[in-house]
């Protein structure tokens, strides 16, 4: 059940119970502190998913693999905290509700229907930013996001 997943994962950061309302961080400081690195397990899951989905959809990673790496980490972070790989390239009033609704969970509806990924994870070959690769290693992800 997604709602349970979401609250369970939130409890890692905020330690709230199921009955509590969605966490409202009390200050900006806490928001920043909550932005921790995603778990390696989730990064690996999202990395594999990205490779598979690129092949399946005949799309390619960005010529700048740093972009790909950050997005994969963003998906992993949302998977950790929300229980679903919510698109990291959007702003949401309520992330938990969005993750449960599912429209922007990767692969999002625009991607599945029209191959539109404004996060530039999956690019059609005619896109100016498209590279020629459908593979990315965990090392590449670590390397390109090392200084973040």
């Amino acid at each position, binding site marked *: 059940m997604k709602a349970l997943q979401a609250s369970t994962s939130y409890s890692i950061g905020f330690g709230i119970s199921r009955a509590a309302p969605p966490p409202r961080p009390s200050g*900006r*400081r806490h*928001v*920043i*502190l909550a*932005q*921790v*690195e995603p778990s390696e397990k989730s990064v690996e899951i999202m990395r594999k998913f990205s490779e598979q989905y690129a092949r399946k959809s005949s799309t390619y990673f*960005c*010529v*700048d693999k*740093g*972009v*790909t*790496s*950050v*997005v994969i*980490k*963003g*998906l992993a*972070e*949302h998977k950790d905290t929300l229980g679903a790989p919510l698109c*990291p*390239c*959007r*702003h949401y*009033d309520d992330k938990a509700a969005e993750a449960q609704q599912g429209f922007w969970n990767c692969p999002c509806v*625009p991607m599945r229907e*029209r191959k*539109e990924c*404004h*996060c*530039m*994870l999956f690019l*059609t070959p*005619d*896109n*100016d*930013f498209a590279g020629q690769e459908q593979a990315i290693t965990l090392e590449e992800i670590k390397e390109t996001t090392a*200084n*973040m």
Partner: protein
Amino acid sequence: MERNNIHSLAGQKARLNHRIGLSFWPKTDFRARKAPSTLRVVCLRDTTAAAVTGKSWEKLVLNSDTPVLVGFYASWCGPCRMVHRVIDEIATDYAGRLKCFVLNADSDMQVAENYDIKAVPVVLLFKKGVKLESVIGTMPKEFYIAAIERVLAS
């Protein structure tokens, strides 16, 4: 004037007869932001542009005598980094004529909501406190330059 939506990125290609990827390549390595030791993990502020927050919004953006560019981003948004690099170039190119800031939409929810920010990256251009242009998505530098020139000329 609202620019095309984010999904028109591929459509823009037709009007670009040169490779635009190059201007987005990092000039040097991504610069890690020197964060205070208490804030060990910081997100994607891989830019030299100053941050604007909800608190400083009125002073820095709305009451600025100089036109202002604000780049909205989210913590783990890959393409936002590309736009940040362009903003850094623009900040140098337009020094004295345009002030450039970035805003984390995740931390400053209220500002993001006030301007109805949905997809990021989004670049908004202000003059005398009024939003004149918005560029949604990751566009080639020329696209931002054109919007800036319209604002400066207005």
